[in-house]
C-alpha cells in the first residue's frame, strides 16, 4: 500500500574524521605510538573512522605495505574509511580492501617529488587572481575546487557581493555593508568589516574571524551568530578576533 513513499533518498553531508599522517614506515613503531596515543583518550578514539594520509611517506619514497597498515589501525580499534596521497599501487591495495581513495585534493602531490609542499600552498592564492569576485551575487562560488587552501582577495567586497571560500579567506580590502563573506575555515579582514562574515560554515567550531575594524552587520562561527544590534553595544578601537566558546561568540581585542 505504501507504494508512494520512496524507499531511499540521497543527501549530501560533511563529516569529521581524524587523519593519520605517517612519517615512517617502521610498522612496529607505528603500532606502538598509535597505541600510546589511544591510551591517552581511549573513549575518543574507540571505533573512530580514520583516514590514512601517505603523503609524507611517499615524499620520502619509503616503501611499505598498505595492507599491513590497514591491519594495524583496525587492530587498535579504528575503522579506516579512506586513504589519500597514496601512489598507484597503494591506491590499488586500498581499493582491494574496500577503502575509498581520495582523488583530488593534492594532485600535485603524487606527481611532484621533492618539491616542498608548503610552497605549493603558498602560491595558490596568488596564482588565481580573485577567482570569486568575478562571479557576482547570485552564485556563491567555491574558490578553487580542487585545492582547499587559502583564498586571497585584494579588492573591495561591495554591497551585494558574496564570497565563498572552501578553506581560509583573507581579504585585504574593505567589506561593505550588504556584502557576505563565508569560509569553511577562518576569515581575516585586514580592513573594515561592515558586511556579514560567516566562518566555519560547515560546522568547524574552531574557526575564527579576525578583522581590523569590526562594524559588521552579522558575524557567525559554525552557525552561532551575533547581529549588529548586539555588536554595537560595545565599540572596539582596533583589531579584534572572534571565536567560539561553549556556543557563545567571544569578541576580543587583539592587543
Amino acid at each position, binding site marked *: 500500500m505504501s507504494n508512494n513513499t520512496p524507499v531511499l533518498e540521497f543527501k549530501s553531508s560533511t563529516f569529521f574524521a581524524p587523519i593519520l599522517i605517517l612519517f615512517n614506515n617502521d610498522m612496529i613503531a607505528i603500532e606502538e605510538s598509535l597505541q600510546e596515543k589511544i591510551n591517552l583518550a581511549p573513549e575518543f578514539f574507540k571505533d573512530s573512522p580514520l583516514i590514512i594520509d601517505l603523503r609524507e611517506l611517499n615524499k620520502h619514497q619509503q616503501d611499505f605495505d598498505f595492507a599491513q597498515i590497514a591491519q594495524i589501525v583496525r587492530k587498535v580499534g579504528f575503522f579506516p574509511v579512506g586513504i589519500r596521497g597514496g601512489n598507484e599501487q597503494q591506491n590499488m591495495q586500498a581499493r582491494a580492501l574496500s577503502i575509498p581513495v581520495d582523488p583530488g585534493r593534492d594532485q600535485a602531490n603524487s606527481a611532484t617529488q621533492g618539491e616542498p609542499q608548503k610552497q605549493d600552498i603558498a602560491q595558490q592564492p596568488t596564482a588565481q587572481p580573485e577567482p570569486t569576485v*568575478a562571479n*557576482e551575487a547570485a552564485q556563491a562560488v567555491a574558490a578553487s575546487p580542487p585545492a582547499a587552501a587559502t583564498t586571497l582577495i585584494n579588492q573591495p567586497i*561591495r*554591497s551585494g557581493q558574496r564570497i565563498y571560500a572552501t578553506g581560509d579567506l583573507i581579504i585585504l580590502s574593505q567589506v561593505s*555593508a*550588504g*556584502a557576505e563573506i563565508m569560509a569553511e575555515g577562518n576569515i581575516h579582514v585586514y580592513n*573594515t568589516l561592515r558586511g556579514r562574515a560567516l566562518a566555519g560554515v560547515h560546522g568547524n567550531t574552531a574557526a575564527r574571524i579576525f578583522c581590523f575594524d569590526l562594524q559588521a552587520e552579522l558575524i557567525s562561527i559554525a552557525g552561532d551568530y551575533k547581529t549588529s544590534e548586539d555588536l554595537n553595544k560595545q565599540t572596539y578601537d582596533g583589531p579584534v578576533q572572534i571565536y567560539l566558546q561553549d556556543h557563545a561568540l567571544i569578541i576580543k581585542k587583539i592587543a
Partner: protein
Amino acid sequence: MARIIVVTSGKGGVGKTTTSAAIAMGLAKAGYKTAVIDFDVGLRNLDLILGCERRVVYDFINVINGEASLSQALIRDKNCNLLYILPASQTRDKDALTFEGVGKVLDELSKEFQYIVCDSPAGIEKGANLALYFADDAFVVTNPEISSVRDSDRMLGILSSKSRRAERNEEPIKEYLLLTRYDAQRVKSGEMLGLDDVQEILSLELLGIIPESRSVLSASNAGVPVILDEKSEAGQAYSDVVARYLGEKRPHRFIDGKQSFLKRLFGGRS
C-alpha cells in the same frame, strides 16, 4: 576606437542624466567627437535635458531592430557640432534592449566617435546592466546620503563582475566618483554626509563634487546642459570634472562651500 563611459548610480534621481549631458557636452567642447546614448528606454529624458526632444524621429531601439540606420537616429546637438545624441524610445521598455543589439550599435559608433557616454537607467536590471556591460570607464554618481552611497557600492560590485572587461579577464573598468547635489552648509551642520564619510565606504578616485545649485534645474528646464552655464558653480564643477577626466590636474572646489562676503571680510568662521 572610442572610449566608452557609463554614467551609473543604482539609485534614481541622483543626477545621472544631468551628468551624462554635462560631460558629453564637455568632452565635445574639448574637441572630441562624442555620442551620448540614453539607455533609459521607456522613460527617456536625455533629449529633454539636451533640448532636442522635438527633433527625435528614430531612436536607439529602432537602430537595434534595424528599422533605422545610426545616421538617421543620431541627433546633432545645436550648441556643439561634435556632440550627437542617440535618444531612447519612449513607447518601449527595457526588454527591447538586446545584448547583441547594444553591442552592434556601440561597435559601429566606436568607429566614428572618440567618446561614447552611456546614460544608465536607475536600478540594477537589464537596462542598467547593458549600459555598463561594454564600458571602459564608469562615472559613479552619488548623493551625499546613505541610501545613495549603499546603492553606488552595490553598483561598483556589479561593475567589477558583470562587465565585458570582467568576463574577459581584462583590465577592470576604471571607476570614478562624482558626488552630486552636495551642500557644504548642510555637511557642516551634520545634516548631510561629507566627502570623507562617502569615501570611507566607496574609496574611489574623486572626479569632482557638484554643489547643489539652482542652475541645474533651470538648465534642465531650458534644455541646455548646465556645463554651458559658466557662471554657475555646478557648471564650473562639471568643467572641472571633464578636465580632470582628460588628465588635467585641478584642485577640488566646493567642498567647504563659499564663504559669504561678510565672513571673508571679518575672517569669521562659524
